[in-house]
């Protein structure tokens, strides 16, 4: 057994003397005006954010809220792109818009590098991960992903109605990322709780939120210890052994990156698979065309990613400034809505329509600029394989009960209940 001193005690205990960040009062309840009081955590937004975003883009393209201690919501593609590219004035030190702001000293590393990192550290932390997530590297996961998709559909046998979100979509990224990190496949249900706690528990009381985040890091620390004792060919062992600037990574960096890969790897792709199946269930002409022309699937998939982009990010304003006509204050949030950007008619023809053979599709579903989703090639592989296998096995299906479909709340949007009738 190797002794790795970095993990011999809980790294979280070392942070006692450091600045603790700031909390603001939690405000929930119906939104009075989306232009001045928006909240992405209210049920109206979860159910259908697109009319809200389209309305804001017309009448107040950079909306504001006093909730979450103050924040802004740009809905035009040009504004979203400008902020994504401007790492000088907007920090990634927290990318979840919540009622807690990490201290300024948390930059440039942040809690879950590299997504929470700013330049120049960001580049080096990201470079470590890139080789594991190239199209070629993630291609090695394709045969296992395809076999998993078949086995999930085998289990539908005898059922007329299945929940495609619960019984299909969620399992695919869960299993793939567990394999890549070297976590036990049977821990899937725990991952779901971690995801919900991190991304949907934003308005919980602080003590509850802290307790739930602790459970995630307790789990990761147990996995780190297991990998120190039993090194293997996976991302956890890779991160434990990785070096930056001539030394091993800080323990908080190892655990933070593992948390990122686990959380960001699961509900994003789960949402993309679910939203695509939801669309195909309610639009028979699109479904029949893709079944008849399987070569169209990669093109259609990009359109689903544009129109139902699951991921919204956040930034923090670095200093007081005037920005495109609004007065931003230091530490104001930016809710960086790639879904809103993707439906801007100034950027996309027929922006509100789903055009499954759209030829020009510069969508921003995986972000723009230096924080381009590191797992985008993995997500595209999983989405393509999930849809290929589903459509080959189940070419005809409909929404069993449109009113029973539920969508996740918060920055990652996708179906969480999706009853489909298999015809």
């Amino acid at each position: 057994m190797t002794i790795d001193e970095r993990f011999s005690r809980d790294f979280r205990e070392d942070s006692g003397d450091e600045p603790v960040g700031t909390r603001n009062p939690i405000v929930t309840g119906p939104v009075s005006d989306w232009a001045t009081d928006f909240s992405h955590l209210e049920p109206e937004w979860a159910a259908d954010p697109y009319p809200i975003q389209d309305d804001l883009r017309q009448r107040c393209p950079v909306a504001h809220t006093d909730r979450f201690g103050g924040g802004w919501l740009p809905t035009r593609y040009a504004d979203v792109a400008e902020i994504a590219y401007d790492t000088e004035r907007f920090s990634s030190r927290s990318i979840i818009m919540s009622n807690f702001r990490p201290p300024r000293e948390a930059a440039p590393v942040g809690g879950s590098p590299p997504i929470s990192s700013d330049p120049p550290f960001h580049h080096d932390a990201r470079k470590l991960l890139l080789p594991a997530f190239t199209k070629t590297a993630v291609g090695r996961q394709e045969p296992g992903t395809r076999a998993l998709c078949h086995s999930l559909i085998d289990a539908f046998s005898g059922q007329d109605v299945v929940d495609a979100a619960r019984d299909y979509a969620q399992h695919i990224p869960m299993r793939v990322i567990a394999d890549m990190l070297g976590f036990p496949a049977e821990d899937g249900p725990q991952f779901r709780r971690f995801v919900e706690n991190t991304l949907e528990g934003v308005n919980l009381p602080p003590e509850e939120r802290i307790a739930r985040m602790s459970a995630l890091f307790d789990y990761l620390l147990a996995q780190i210890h297991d990998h120190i004792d039993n090194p293997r060919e996976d991302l956890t062992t890779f991160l434990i052994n990785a070096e930056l600037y001539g030394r091993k990574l800080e323990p908080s960096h190892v655990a933070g990156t593992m948390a990122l890969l686990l959380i960001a790897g699961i509900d994003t792709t789960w949402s993309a698979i679910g939203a695509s199946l939801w669309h195909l269930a309610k639009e028979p002409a699109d479904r029949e065309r893709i079944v008849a022309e399987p070569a169209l699937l990669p093109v259609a998939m990009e359109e689903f990613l544009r129109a139902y982009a699951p991921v919204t990010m956040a930034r923090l304003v670095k200093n007081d400034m005037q920005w495109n006509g609004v007065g931003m204050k230091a530490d104001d949030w930016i809710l960086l809505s790639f879904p809103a950007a993707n439906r801007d008619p100034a950027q996309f023809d027929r922006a509100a329509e789903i055009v499954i053979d759209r030829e020009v599709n510069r969508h921003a579903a995986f972000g723009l600029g230096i924080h381009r989703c590191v797992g985008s090639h993995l997500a595209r592989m999983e989405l393509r394989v999930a849809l290929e296998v589903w459509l080959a096995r189940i070419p005809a299906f409909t929404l069993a009960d449109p009113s029973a479909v539920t969508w996740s709340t918060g920055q990652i949007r996708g179906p969480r209940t999706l009853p489909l009738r298999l015809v």
Partner: protein
Amino acid sequence: MHRKDTVHRKDTVHREGTVKVRINSQLCQGHGRCYDLAPSLFGDDDEGYGRVLGDGIVPAGKEQDARLAVANCPERAVELIEEN
């Protein structure tokens, strides 16, 4: 940088010179749309960034692939250059 655009298609390509593809590596973030859409013209490096295969000259019959790669790069990093 945020104008709408279309894929320019010509039934007959009049070639005075050659057409080449180029990637602006200052802009490329490794989305991989170019090597997805035009795998005979682009590949990826070991970090997933796009690279032009060979001399980048677009052979006859691959003009549409090249245009798709240009039209789908989220970072507008792929360029088509006509050389006379």
